[in-house]
């Protein structure tokens, strides 16, 4: 399998602060590779090093087999970057934004026009082609930013929090387009703190926490390995948690305290729920709330760190 990105002992310091602490990973051709973690986990630092915006402190980072330090222009000509914040030209029209960007890749006029037309169709922006960007909604701007990143037919599409700040409808539109690009074989590197985004799009991902890789694998593997199929959320007095769960070890894969709630992960959630209810009845423990639901990547993160992706976002 051809390696598109390869990082070995990659370190990034900002002054005294270490944002990335010696990580290793590879992105292979044709896959969507995810960097999942809360804000401040080091995702954006990694991405910026890949497109040459931020120098590598130590370790190795190769993109298309070229060292990011020496081959910057060559690498960038084969990348598409969707940044966290839109940086479109607000005074220019949608089409002009694409054409100007094509210029930076030195595409010929004819080719640029053709590609811009294709992208407008693909991103469903054709009827907005003449509209000035300043007048577009956030969702449309995002679609244009994504479309703009495709102008050079990139071999690697870098998506840095591509749907942050979008409403659910706009987010789904972006995801649909990304899935179509994936089907067409585009290699993608996605950073996100939305676990749903990562599970929808990524074949493989790494979970980052404070600049280190906590875990790596496919979303399904990670969920299966750490938290099983279902999560049982229980509102129960902390002092009674041990008692409630004693004797249920064969059913409990992992457990975590989350605020006032206890979250118990299990492969056989229904059975667990039944036995917990029975125990609570016989022991006279009051269960103020209980809910059984399928597990997701958020639970993996919770189990590994004791934090939530959103919660730890605020304190970082």
């Amino acid at each position, binding site marked *: 399998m051809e390696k598109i990105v390869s990082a070995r002992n990659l370190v990034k310091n900002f002054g005294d602060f270490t944002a990335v602490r010696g990580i290793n990973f590879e992105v292979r051709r044709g896959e969507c590779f995810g960097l999942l973690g809360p804000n401040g986990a080091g995702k954006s630092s990694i991405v910026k090093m890949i497109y040459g915006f931020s120098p590598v402190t130590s370790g190795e980072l190769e993109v298309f087999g070229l060292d990011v330090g020496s081959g910057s222009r060559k690498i960038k000509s084969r990348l598409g970057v969707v940044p966290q914040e839109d940086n479109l030209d607000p005074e220019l029209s949608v089409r002009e934004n694409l054409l100007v960007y094509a210029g*930076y*890749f030195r595409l010929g006029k004819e080719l640029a026009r053709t590609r811009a037309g294709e992208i407008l169709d693909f991103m469903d922006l054709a009827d907005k082609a003449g509209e000035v960007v300043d007048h577009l909604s956030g969702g449309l701007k995002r679609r244009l930013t994504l479309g703009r990143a495709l102008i050079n037919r990139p071999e690697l599409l870098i998506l840095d929090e591509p749907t942050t700040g979008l409403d659910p409808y706009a987010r789904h539109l972006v995801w649909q387009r990304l899935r179509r690009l994936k089907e067409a074989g585009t290699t993608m590197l996605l950073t996100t703190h939305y676990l749903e985004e990562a599970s929808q799009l990524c074949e493989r991902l790494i979970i980052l926490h404070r600049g280190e890789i906590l875990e790596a694998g496919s979303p399904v593997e990670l969920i299966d390995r750490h938290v099983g199929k279902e999560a049982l959320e229980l509102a129960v007095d902390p002092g009674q948690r041990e008692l409630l769960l004693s004797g249920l070890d064969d059913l409990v894969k992992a457990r975590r305290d989350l605020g006032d709630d206890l979250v118990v992960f299990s492969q056989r959630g229904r059975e667990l729920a039944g036995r917990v209810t029975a125990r609570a009845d016989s022991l006279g423990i009051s269960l103020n709330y209980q809910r059984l639901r399928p597990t997701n990547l958020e639970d993996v993160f919770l189990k590994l760190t004791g934090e939530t992706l959103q919660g730890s976002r605020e304190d970082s």
Partner: protein
Amino acid sequence: MAAKAALLREIIRVPDLSWPHVFRVFRRNLLVFGKTWKANLMFNFVEPVLYLWALGFGLGVYVSSINGLSYIEFLAPALIASSAMFSTTYEMTYDSFSRMAFRKTFHGMVATPVSLDDVVMGELLYGTFKGVLYGNVFLLVVALFGLVKSPWALLVFVPLALMVMSFSILSMVWTSIAPNYDSFGYFFTLIISPMFLFAGVFFPVESLPPGIRFLPWLTPLYHAVEAVRPLVLGQITPSIPGHLAWMAAFIALTFRIPMVMVRRRLIQ
């Protein structure tokens, strides 16, 4: 000390320039200018016309002559230079800052094969273009007032280009360290306005006290005014090449600085 040495090393290193990419950056700004020039041109153009009226026709009545010229003849050519200076410095401060720090236009460009040095060079060239354009528009106004005395005036773009390139560099350096829009007030109050007032636009620098007479010599505006005025009046003097050389040297010695400063600000 080590930090200063590192800065110096960066400044003398060959920039990472690719001229086709520089040109694309320049063209992007030109395209945006094409959308906004009407509002823009008025703003930069009305002010020097007001100066011309107020000082040339108003105050000028009380000034018998300066170096054998009527006051308006003395003033008008210099206002060509100062209006070019202002249009460039506004563009390379407020507008460049907006592209660099607020709209993240620079970030968008450097995610493509365009390097940050290309971006800054494209900006400097655009600032130069704009100053030369506005200077020439004002030259036209001066001509309409009947104050252009010689076809040598067609060469005014040469000192103008050198001067506004110098101001592009100066402004860009300030922009690279500016924390916010407000800080440009200091740039104009401390650097640009004193030049405008004392670098030979409104009165000959010989009228300054002897101890500080050398100060205008340190400014690009002075050298531009000293070259533009004889060209417009048709009084070609042998000192013109010296003024042009001063500005060319200024550019050669400083053009690398804004590139390094912007890189230090953005790339971490």
